[in-house]
């Protein structure tokens, strides 16, 4: 088992990809977290005062819990989760065995767009991180 060591180049590349795919499309916040609940990288608008540490811990726990629910109904895992709020909604997608992409977006962005962009982004991030495992 290895520790996750983030190099500057992988982080920069990932951040740029997230900015281009999601933030520029109007998404409020994107967090890349690991399953232990650590924030790998956070991209958000300057005005956002979100507590990313807590969010990452709870999101990882949330993923863990739904994975257990999945097992109860005979699935291995749910690869994406979506919670709808009145104004803001949150979308979770698994990237690989360790990484989860968390996207928070408002009414101005459609779920379809988020799903499409996240699916593309997941592949790019998976490739970028493949070099450091």
């Amino acid at each position, binding site marked *: *088992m*290895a*520790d*996750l*060591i*983030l*190099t*500057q180049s992988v*982080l*920069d590349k990932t951040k740029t990809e997230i900015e281009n795919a999601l933030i520029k499309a109007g998404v409020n916040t994107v967090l890349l977290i*690991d*399953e*232990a*609940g*650590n924030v*790998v990288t956070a991209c958000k608008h300057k005005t956002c005062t979100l*507590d990313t*540490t*807590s969010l990452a*811990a*709870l999101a*990882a*726990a949330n993923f*863990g*819990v739904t994975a*257990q629910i999945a097992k109860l109904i005979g699935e291995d895992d749910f690869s994406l989760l979506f919670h709808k709020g009145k104004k803001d909604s949150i979308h979770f997608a698994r990237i690989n*065995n*360790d990484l989860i992409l968390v996207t928070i977006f408002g009414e101005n962005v459609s779920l379809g767009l988020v799903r499409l962009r996240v699916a593309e982004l997941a592949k790019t991030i998976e490739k970028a991180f493949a070099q450091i495992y």
Partner: protein
Amino acid sequence: MNMALINLSKKEIHCKIVYYGPGRCGKTTNLLYIYNAMNNQARSKMLTIETKGERTLFFDLLPLNLGKINGFNIRIQLYTVPGQIIYKATRKLVLKGVDGMVFVADSLKVRQGKNMESLQDLHDNLLDYNLNTEEIPIILQFNKRDLVPTPIPTLTKEELEIDLNSQLNTKVFEAAAIKGIGVFETLKEISKRTIQYVARKHLSTNH
């Protein structure tokens, strides 16, 4: 599965320390005492998911900044697990990516069996992640020592040692977490061991 997260771009190391132990042994009390005693710069918000009866349902989380080593900011996240035996699946989830552990034992005589059961549960859960207590730093805290002089039947230090430390063979701290006695001694030691463990693996090599 990853353990410590090392961010070379921000020069940060994130470690996860988990407080483990039977239900009602004082894991959350340890974290609360640390939270209240730390100044605002060092600590972040403490996150607690509790059930109605004061029991930890999922986990408590307390992020701390512990200063710098070799130019790296050390950030530690303290987690507790729900001690009640029925929450086994949750405990296992919280152990994911653990870098250091504190096993909090209850000094009450009636909890003797629960202590041993919980330690065995920890071993089993770690094994599922291919981990063991020989590799990951772990220390013991015998909590509620303030009850020893009272009429409530308690376990002696020797009894607790035989039950819990014959296999672990690790450092023991006596504590009364509710009064803060032994809390920081425990935290200091596990932080030191955890950071040494992570640093030994990485900071000496060139990345």
